[in-house]
């Protein structure tokens, strides 16, 4: 028996290796420069299969019923996918050509999946100018769009108004120097343990660092170049690091202690996205909403924040491609975006949706809306997640073992250069 198996294994290996070797004379670049096909006129029809993650996956099925009232011949079937499993599930579906018609795509996955050639270029029934430019950029791979921004988020400075006043900043800090001085004042005059919480490395810390680099005028990554080793980026790293070396930011804040620390006044400020408003109001109890505020990223050459969120893409193997795009277009209508905000609190990616008083009337949200006009995302390159992981590791060294910022910039450049842009 053993010998038989071995022979079979050899045959299989040879067959596989041969097929790989014979045909493997050059990587098919796939994706990029494709022409979008038009979408048929009229109402949508047929079954439209959609994959969605997280809270969106739970709520979308109910929400889509309204689409079916407008398009009686169309039925939307939503499959809820957990975020943890989503990347693998989509990758497997692409390999097996068993994709749904539409799926939510994490903004940093856009490049990877578009490169497989499995995503359909965005047709012109969706208008680029309707969206926040930073959000639209996340759909672009080699200047071709492969999806539509669905919802967005961006980062602001959350600060305790009472502590800021004692520190001498009754209004929000407006520049790098003011942010630093406020953090120092909160610690030294207002009795906070930490002036400003910043991520000391770990997953996603690049999202905290890049806004400072962008605000300082650095261009660190484009579709075809990775340029982390430049003076503007190094200066931003030095500024970021100084909060740790000056003892204004904690290097090892245990998980889950940020919000209680902020409520107790032990942490004076932190940088985060819109989801923290709800968490703070719940943990702080009645009246706490009056004791803190949000402010745009501090000005240097610009006040640029990070834009995140999620996109919607239609697959080129979709059975109901036209129906899929019609559903995506419907979700991108301003009034539908406002309704979707009502349902799950996702911030609209469509700019005109923000004119609705539900959003523009809320002081917290209005600030997020203004910051969205000046927010950037990394380019949609297939290797971004891997570059970001290397970035996170170097940031951790910068914050915890006091590495020289110039050396950090160089190390990130070397790692990122070795990984490449995947093209």
């Amino acid at each position, binding site marked *: *028996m053993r010998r*038989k*198996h071995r022979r*079979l*294994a050899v045959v*299989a*290996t040879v067959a*596989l*290796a041969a*097929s*790989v*070797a014979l*045909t*493997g*004379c*050059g*990587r*098919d670049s*796939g*994706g990029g420069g494709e022409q979008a096909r038009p979408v048929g006129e009229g109402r949508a029809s047929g079954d439209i299969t959609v994959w969605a993650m997280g809270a969106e996956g739970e709520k979308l099925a109910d929400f889509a019923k309204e689409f079916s009232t407008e398009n009686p011949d169309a039925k939307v079937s939503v499959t809820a996918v957990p975020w943890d499993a989503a*990347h693998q599930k989509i*990758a497997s579906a*692409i*390999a097996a*050509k068993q994709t749904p018609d539409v799926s939510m795509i994490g903004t940093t996955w856009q490049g*990877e999946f578009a*490169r*497989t*050639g*499995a995503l359909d270029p965005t047709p012109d029934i969706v208008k680029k100018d309707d969206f926040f430019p930073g959000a639209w950029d996340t759909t672009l791979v080699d200047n071709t769009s492969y999806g539509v921004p669905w919802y967005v988020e961006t980062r602001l400075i959350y600060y305790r108004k009472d502590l800021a006043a004692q520190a001498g900043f009754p209004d929000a800090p407006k520049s790098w120097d003011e942010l630093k001085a406020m953090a120092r004042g909160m610690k030294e005059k207002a009795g906070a343990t930490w002036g400003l919480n910043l991520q000391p*490395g*770990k*997953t996603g810390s690049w999202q905290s660092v890049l806004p400072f680099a962008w605000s300082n005028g650095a261009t660190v990554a484009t579709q075809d170049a990775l340029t982390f080793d430049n003076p503007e980026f190094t200066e931003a790293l030095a500024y970021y690091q100084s909060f740790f070396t000056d003892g204004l930011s904690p*290097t*090892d804040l*245990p*998980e889950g*202690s940020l919000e209680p620390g902020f409520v107790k006044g032990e942490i004076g400020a932190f940088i985060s996205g819109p989801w923290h408003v709800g968490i703070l109001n719940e943990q702080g109890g009645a009246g706490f909403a009056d004791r803190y505020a949000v402010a745009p990223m501090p000005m240097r050459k610009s006040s640029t924040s990070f834009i995140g969120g999620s996109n919607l893409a239609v697959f080129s193997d979709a059975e109901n491609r036209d129906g899929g795009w019609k559903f995506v277009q419907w979700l991108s209508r301003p009034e539908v975006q406002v309704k979707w905000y009502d349902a799950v609190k996702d911030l609209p990616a469509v700019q005109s949706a923000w004119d609705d008083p539900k959003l523009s009337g809320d002081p917290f949200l209005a600030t997020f809306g203004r910051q969205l006009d000046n927010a950037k995302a990394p380019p949609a390159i*297939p*290797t971004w*997640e*891997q570059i970001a*992981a290397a970035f996170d*590791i170097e940031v*951790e*060294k910068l914050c*915890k*073992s006091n590495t020289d910022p110039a050396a950090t910039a160089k190390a990130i450049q070397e790692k990122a250069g070795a990984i490449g842009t*995947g093209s």
Partner: protein
Amino acid sequence: MASAPTATAPARPTGATAPDRPAGAVRRRQRLRRALTGWAFSTPFAVLFLVFMAVPVVVSLVMSFTDLRSTDLRNPLAVNFVGLDNYARLFGDDLFLRSSVNTLVFVAVGVPLTIVLALAAAVALNSGLVRFRALFRVGFYLPVVTSIVAIAVVWRFLLDPEVGLVNNLLRLVGVDGPSWLFDPKLALPSLIVMAAWRNLGFLMVIFLAGLQTVPAELYEAATLDGATRWQQFRRLTLPLLRPTLLFGGVVTGIGYLQLFEEPFVMTQGGPLSSTLSVSYHIYNQFGFGNYGYAAAGSYVLFVAIVGLSLVQFRLLGSRD
């Protein structure tokens, strides 16, 4: 196809053979039927084994010699054969080297620690000195059947620098405890202790079973000869337990070389990559879509596991 009763099975005396047919033809037909029966029973297993075990193993080995990435999924034939490039790259990858060192430290400290603790627990429970044996047995075994996620929550609480039980106890005796999981020097040792605690129960049960196979007369004889308890343990228990120890060592060694869950749920490989393990690194590479590279890492780990097991067989295996 292995154990199925094929044509070589001993011929049973056959019952009624039709008198008008020559006996040879009947026997041949019967042999054929038996052979077919054998194949019928073993084919489902063989097919499942091929599809779910043999083929994936072979494919992943082939994959490790290619530059397959997730972006090639729709067009796997566009992948290039790169020979040993992935393997060469592994040894220039400082995260892979770092994770290898971490994993080796984990094995070198964790395996002996777990075995000694489990053996001590097993001997104590077996000796009759301990009361409420059933209670202790269950107590030691409980971590084995508890989900690692629940364990992580409890251990993170225990090791929390501010409110954790460990540091609160240290504070009672006037020591300012460190932040166990956030200190690059202490995170890996903390995980080793946690893993030893978690795996102790399983080994203890195995050792207990081994201890109970040692005949009581041997101890009686030894006692009559004036051997102390320690001498009995050294000269009697340990040698007789050698096969059990070998099994325990190999199983624990494999488990610790494949270390993944503890760093994944407790530290995400940090701080400063101090708890990144080889498996975790491979997992990340699969996540980044570097399938060929990750497959190469898996085979390096596989070779390390075979190597460690061979060493253990050499050291503890039977010397008859």
